[in-house]
C-alpha cells in the first residue's frame, strides 16, 4: 500500500493561489485548523473557500487570503457570528456565494458523483436565487413537471478534513457523533488531504471504535498528516471539546487592531509546534484509546445545538 504520510508544509506545498479549497467540519467543530494556520503563514492568496463555515473562514478572511467564500453559514456555534468574516463581508472585501445548507450538501454530492447538478426544492422562493444570479432552475421531465433548483456541483481543486485517527495508507476514522460532510468534501476534490489527531496502525482501528467510525476510506485521500491538536480551538470530540476560553479570546482580540496584532503575533505568526506548545499539556492531547469510545453512543448534550 502506498504510504501517504506527509508533513503540514508538504500538504500546503500542493496548494496554489487561486484554488478552490473545501474545508471539512461544521461551524466550530472538527475543523482542520492546523492546515488553516499553515495557510495563514503561506503566501497563497485569492482562494475560493468552500465550507460549512467556522473560524476557518474567519481567519482566512482576516489574513486576506480569500477572494470568494461559498457557505450556508459562518458561525462559531457558542458565539453566533465570526467577527472577521462579518468585517470582511461588511467591507465588501470578499465575494460571497451564500446558499441553503442542503443545497450546499447537494453541490458536494453532485461533484462527488461527477454530475453537473442535483435538483432540490431548497432555495425556491428565497433570495438565494437573487443573490446568486448564476443559479438555474430545472423542470422535471416526468409527468409532475415540477420546477426545482438545479444546485450546481461544487467542484473543488483541493479538500482538507480533520479526523480523530488515520493510518499511513490514508484511511480515516471519525470517533465523534457526527461525520458531517467530510466524505463529500474529499469526494468533490482533485487533491484530497486528511489531517489526524493520531496516526495508528490499521490493526488499531477496531480497538478505537466500531466499524461505522471508519467513514473515510483511502479511496478518498491522497495525503495524511498527523497534527495532534490539529482542530484546536474547534471541538474534536471525543479527543477534546471546543476550547471555549480560547475562542472567546479570539473573538475579543478581533475587536480592536492592537488586540488582534497581539493575538496574531502570539498564536498565528508561529509554527504549529510552537502554537501547540503555548496551549499547555492539558489541551489538545488525544485521549488514550478506549475500546468502543467512538461509537457515538455516549454523545452528551454538548455544543449548543444547531439541532
Amino acid at each position, binding site marked *: 500500500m502506498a504510504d501517504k504520510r506527509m508533513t503540514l508544509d508538504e500538504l500546503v506545498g500542493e496548494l496554489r493561489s487561486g484554488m478552490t479549497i473545501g474545508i471539512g467540519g461544521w461551524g466550530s467543530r472538527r475543523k482542520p485548523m492546523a492546515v488553516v494556520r499553515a495557510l495563514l503563514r503561506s503566501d497563497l492568496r485569492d482562494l475560493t473557500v468552500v465550507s460549512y463555515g467556522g473560524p476557518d473562514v474567519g481567519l482566512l478572511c482576516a489574513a486576506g487570503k480569500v477572494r470568494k467564500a461559498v457557505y450556508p453559514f*459562518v458561525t462559531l456555534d457558542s458565539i453566533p457570528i465570526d467577527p472577521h468574516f462579518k468585517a470582511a*463581508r461588511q467591507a465588501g472585501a470578499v465575494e460571497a456565494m451564500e446558499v441553503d445548507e442542503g443545497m450546499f450538501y447537494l453541490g458536494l454530492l453532485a461533484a462527488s458523483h461527477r454530475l453537473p447538478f442535483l435538483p432540490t426544492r431548497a432555495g425556491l422562493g*428565497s433570495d*438565494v436565487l437573487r443573490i446568486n444570479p448564476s443559479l438555474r432552475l430545472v423542470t422535471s421531465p416526468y409527468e409532475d413537471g415540477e420546477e426545482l433548483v438545479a444546485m450546481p456541483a461544487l467542484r473543488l481543486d483541493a479538500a482538507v478534513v480533520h479526523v480523530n485517527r488515520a493510518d499511513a495508507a490514508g484511511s480515516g476514522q471519525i470517533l465523534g457523533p457526527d461525520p458531517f460532510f467530510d466524505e463529500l468534501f474529499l469526494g468533490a476534490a482533485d487533491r484530497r488531504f486528511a489531517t489526524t489527531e493520531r496516526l495508528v496502525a490499521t490493526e488499531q482501528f477496531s480497538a478505537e471504535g466500531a466499524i461505522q467510525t471508519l467513514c473515510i476510506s483511502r479511496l478518498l485521500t491522497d495525503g495524511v498528516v498527523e497534527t495532534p491538536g490539529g482542530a484546536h480551538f474547534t471541538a474534536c470530540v471525543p479527543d477534546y471539546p471546543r476550547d471555549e476560553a480560547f475562542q472567546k479570546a479570539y473573538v475579543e482580540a478581533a475587536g480592536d487592531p492592537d488586540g488582534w496584532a497581539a493575538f496574531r503575533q502570539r498564536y498565528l505568526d508561529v509554527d504549529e509546534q510552537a502554537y501547540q506548545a503555548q496551549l499547555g499539556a492539558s489541551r489538545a492531547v488525544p485521549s488514550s484509546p478506549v475500546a468502543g469510545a467512538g461509537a457515538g453512543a455516549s454523545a*452528551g448534550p454538548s455544543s449548543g445545538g444547531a439541532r
Partner: protein
Amino acid sequence: MSDAHSGSGDNPVAGSDRGVTRAEYCAIACADIFRGNGEVMASAFGTAPAIGARLAKSTFSPDLVLTDGDAALVAGAPPLESPGTAMVLESHMPYRKVFDVVWSGRRNLIMMASQIDREGNQNISAIGDWGSPTAQLIGVRGAPGNTVNHSTSYWIPRHSTRSFVEHVDVVSGVGYARAASAGPSATRFHEIHRVVSDLGVFDFEAPGHVMRVRSVHPGVTVDDVRAATGFELAVPDRVPQTREPSPEELQLIREVLDPRGLRDREVKA
C-alpha cells in the same frame, strides 16, 4: 377568553394568582405549535421553543421526536441544560440524515428570525445591501429549504419595529407571497404556521396570508403590539389572550423541564 382590547386584568383564569410569567406564556404558545403532531421531529431554537417542544411531548403530543442538540434523537423530554444527566438515545441523527428528515417533511420547526415581515418572510442572512451589508448575520442556514419542505414557525423574543419589518432585507425563510410566485413546487409543502413573540401569537390566516394577531399575552394590549410592529397587522374584532397553562403544565415547566429558570433570561418577567 377576555377581550384584549379592553385591557388586561379581566382574565377569568387569573394567571397572576399563580404568578404565570411572560416567559411561561411564550413557552405555552410554543408548545401549542406541536399540538396534534404525530411522529415528527421537533426542532426548536431558543429557550421558549425548547421548553415548548418538551412540554408538548410530555403532555398532548407524546409521539414527538426530540433531538439532543447534537447528533442523536433522545427518549423522553430531558430538562434544559442538565449537564451530567445521562440522556437515553433512540437513534443516530447526524446532519446528513437531518436532510432526509427535512426533505421527507417529517419535521416541525420553530426557528428564530432577525427580521420577519408581513408575508412571513424571514431573514437571518444580512441587514442592508447584499454586496456590502451593514450587518452580516449568520447566513441563510437551512431556512430556504426548511420553509418549502415542512411546517415552520418563528420565535422572536423581543418584538420590535427592528424585527417586525415591512420587508426583510434578505429572504432566507420563504413567506407566502414569495412561495406563491415561485410556483407549485414551492407551495406544495409550504406552511408558515405561527409566529410567537414576547408580546403575542400571530398566524397567517388573514385574507392574502398576511400576518394576523391571533392572541396577545396577558398584560399586553393590541396597541402595544401595533406600536412594536413595523407594518400593518391584520387584527380581528376580538383578540383573545394567550391561553393559560394548566396546573400540570406549569408544574412541568417550573419543576421538571426548566428548573433553573433559563426562560426568565430570555424573556424578562
